């Protein structure tokens, strides 16, 4: 008989001991390691999912904020443009107004200059024509100046000639020259104008001035 029952019993015991040994030193640690690795992998996957969700949420927030910033920037740009246009218009209006003012002033200045020039030319012309009736060869020097209409009654302008030997008065309608020896030249405005019919009498400060020469 090939079956040794003692050996059978011993082998059964050996096998049961081997089962315990394997459970203690092999299966337990291996299964524990596998379970730990599966837990780690599950935790890593959960963490990855959570981070993916978080990244997705942050991306959405970023997109929203970008859109808000773009809108704000567009609003600021539009406001800046409108402000710039308004300021430009104001500056242009001011510049135009200033240019108009300058133009008006220039035109007025030109008018005044033209008027003054015209008057000066009249006076010059009159003096040139008047000087021909005087005897400039007289001794002494002549100094001519115009007098105002306040001392003239008939409205026509006259010339008061100042000779070195006294005041001589001459009018374009008068044919007389009156020699005035008054040393007070400031009283020349008190010269009174006498018509040609009374050309023989010219009063100055209440005193008559005798005509020195008749032209």
């Amino acid at each position, binding site marked *: 008989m*090939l*079956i*040794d*029952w*003692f*050996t*059978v*019993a*011993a*082998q*059964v015991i*050996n*096998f*049961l*001991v*081997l*089962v315990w*040994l*394997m*459970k203690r*030193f*092999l*299966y337990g*640690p*291996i*299964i*524990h*390691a*596998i379970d*730990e*690795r599966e837990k*780690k992998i599950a935790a890593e996957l959960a963490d990855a999912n959570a981070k993916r969700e978080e990244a997705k949420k942050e991306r959405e927030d970023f997109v929203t904020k970008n859109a808000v910033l773009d809108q704000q920037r567009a609003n600021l740009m539009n406001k800046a443009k409108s402000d710039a246009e308004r300021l430009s218009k104001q500056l242009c209006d001011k510049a135009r107004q200033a240019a108009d003012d300058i133009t008006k002033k220039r035109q007025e200045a030109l008018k005044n200059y033209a008027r003054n020039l015209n008057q000066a030319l009249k006076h010059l012309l009159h003096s040139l024509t008047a000087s021909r009736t005087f005897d400039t060869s007289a001794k002494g020097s002549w100094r001519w100046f115009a007098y105002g209409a306040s001392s003239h009654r008939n409205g026509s302008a006259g010339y008061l000639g100042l000779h070195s030997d006294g005041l001589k008065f001459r009018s374009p309608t008068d044919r007389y020259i009156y020699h005035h020896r008054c040393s007070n030249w400031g009283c020349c405005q008190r010269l009174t104008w006498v018509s040609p019919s009374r050309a023989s009498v010219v009063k100055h400060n209440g005193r008559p001035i005798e005509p020195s020469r008749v032209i």
Partner: protein
Amino acid sequence: MRLSPDQLIFWQYGWFHLNATIVFTWAIMLYMAIGAMLITRRLSTNHQRSGWQNLLEIVVVGIEKQISDIGLKDPQKYIGFLRTLFLFVAFSSLCTVIPYYEPPTGSLSTTVGLALCVFVAVPMFGIEAQGVGGYLKSYIEPTVIMLPFNIISEVSRTLALAVRIRFGII
């Protein structure tokens, strides 16, 4: 001519004797225990692990998957017994490359012992899973007529295991 390692007796004291079957079985047990201690001394729970750890994990997970494939729920209860049976027979056969080695599974005594373990384990797991009534009820399924055939199949399975391991493997 020696037909079985049982005939090679190293020591004997009365009916207590140590033959080659028992001694080589102890050697296999020692080899497997030391190997297991060495491999599981520094197990890695990261993605990087040693080749031996990888091999053991493949064996453990493979057997678990096969038990799940045949429909058994909660394979953890049967894993210890089945894996040990598988590893013992595998190592016994693989170590035949060692000179002067007598595989324990070459002895009918070893295979009968293993078959007896299975013979006891099957009803034990069945009762644990279904209860005594449920387990005994499975013998009369699908009909009561099948009762003797189920009992015969239990006994014949045991004998078949013993003979298949002894003559089929080594």
